[in-house]
């Protein structure tokens, strides 16, 4: 168990994310940290500034057929397909442990209709110990065929409906598979979201030439890991210059340098995703390295990095 003793550091890691105070700017990304308990014997889950749970849907879902993960050179593809225990079992079996954690619990919510999202949130509203919701709008919208997150109209409509349901911290997670992410960001901000998290996975594909088959049964999958970081950084920077609400950066983060890059580009906090698979104690190492970077730059509040990107003269 790698425990983190904040006392010996001269850097204040706490940040304000909308109405939340996080003890540090590192959250576990949805779908890459299970229900928060799995790694608790390797890493003190409490050490995260927050946990975004696996996406929760109204009913339990088995997800897509295998193979549904595959490795690439600098990243991976997944077509898990929102496998999860469903909101009822989540409340019964997963919430008690999450409640016991001294960190912010953000439940990631997904659905195939606005009613799905509302259904999940209504059941969760009565449960204590949930600090907020992250809305995964990269799920296929049954009506239009495309994702909720692929048009500003549908993204705004969904945000508006959910804002009416809850006073809790409401963060909308944007898809990068989009012509103009700022347009979606502005629409979602306009309907009262407290924060934006980005990016979800890029759509990708791999082919195995011996079998001449796609590496995923589902053909397409979500591309994550270090390879997508440059795309994520550009989108965070662009959205930062388009909205006022705080941004949580996601995409390929695996080192303290990466965290600082995202904060310089405008992120208030970040999420660790695929790196948790490769290095279950990444959080601890990143926090330690962040101290070194902050100290070398004479920075005492980690939030001072935010949006501090300099221009070329």
């Amino acid at each position, binding site marked *: 168990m790698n425990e983190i003793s904040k006392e010996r550091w001269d850097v204040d890691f706490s940040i304000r994310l909308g109405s939340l105070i996080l003890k540090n700017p590192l959250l576990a990304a949805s*779908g*890459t*940290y*299970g229900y928060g308990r*799995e*790694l608790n014997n*390797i890493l003190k889950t409490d050490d995260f500034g927050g946990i975004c749970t*696996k996406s929760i849907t109204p009913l*339990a879902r*088995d*997800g897509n057929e*295998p*193979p*549904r*993960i*595959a*490795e*690439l*050179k*600098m*990243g*991976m593809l*997944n077509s*898990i397909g929102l*496998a999860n225990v469903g909101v009822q079992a989540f409340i019964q079996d997963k919430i008690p442990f999450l409640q016991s954690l001294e960190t912010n619990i953000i439940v990631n919510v997904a659905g195939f209709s606005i009613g799905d999202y509302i259904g999940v949130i209504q059941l969760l509203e009565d449960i204590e110990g949930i600090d907020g919701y992250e809305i995964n709008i990269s799920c296929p919208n049954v009506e239009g065929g495309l994702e909720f997150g692929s048009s500003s109209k549908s993204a705004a409509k969904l945000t508006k409906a959910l804002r009416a349901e809850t006073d809790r911290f409401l963060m909308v997670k944007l898809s990068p598979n989009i012509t103009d992410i700022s347009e979606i960001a502005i629409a979602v901000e306009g309907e009262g979201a407290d924060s934006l998290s980005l990016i979800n996975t890029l759509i990708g594909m791999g082919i195995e030439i011996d079998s001449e088959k796609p590496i995923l049964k589902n053909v397409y999958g979500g591309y994550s*890991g270090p390879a997508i970081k440059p795309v994520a950084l550009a989108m965070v920077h662009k959205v930062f210059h388009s909205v006022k609400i705080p941004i949580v950066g996601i995409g390929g983060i695996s080192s303290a340098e990466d965290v600082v890059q995202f904060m310089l580009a405008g992120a208030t906090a970040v999420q660790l995703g695929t790196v*948790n*698979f*490769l*290095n*279950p104690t990444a959080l601890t190492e990143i926090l330690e390295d962040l101290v070194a970077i902050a100290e070398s730059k004479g920075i005492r509040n980690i939030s001072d990095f935010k949006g501090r990107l300099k221009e070329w003269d």
Partner: protein
Amino acid sequence: MRVLSNEKNALNIYSLTFESTSELLESLPGQFVNINVRGEDSPFFRRPFSIASATDDCIEIIFEVVGAGTWQLSTLHVGDSVDVIGPLGLGYDLDFTESKSLLIGGGVGLPPLMFLYYKMKNKGIEPQFLAGFKSVSYNFMPRNITNVHFSSDDGSLGSKGYVTDLLIETLFHEKVDHIYACGPEPMLSKVIEIAEENEIRCSVSIEKVFGCGTGICFGCIIENSLKRLTETGRKYSLACVEGTVFDAGDINL
């Protein structure tokens, strides 16, 4: 963790031992370690290997070079440091005191059974051990494992043919309560079939591509049997944390 030895045991087969944490030393047969292989052509995911033995101060894995990751592992030198996590997975049900056990494996499916064998011997139990190899050149079975019957595809070691033929033969004249099997999928399917016919309890170790090995990526799924589907309402189990050892009746291979 520091590499203590890395020796070529047989054709393309290496035995790698490394210094071990106290947690690792308490590992159970059937559990595995997950190794972050670094080098010129580093694979992205960690690489899982069954624990082949655990002594007071070290852990052993036995691996075959089949691709970039295992090749890289084969180049490790004594004293190199290697990023290992584990023990992971549930391991074998060690409730075997009453029953007569048979271990059956092929190629690099044998290491977890070797570990199981050592544990059984420690408890004074002598299981049957059936081991199949492509040929004698691949044989890496250590001398301290006795009572093994070998088979090989070309007859260069033990009886010629599949190790499952040996199983059928053995079951003619021996009573077995519990079969523990690990190896390539076609072999496992055959073992399960034979066990079912003979109504013998059968535990199998499953290999899948592992994204994490720790239960957080939901990638390493194996289909549940109708029985387990009915019990749990779930179509799949996670091989890494709900296995890698499963009761043959719980899964569809």
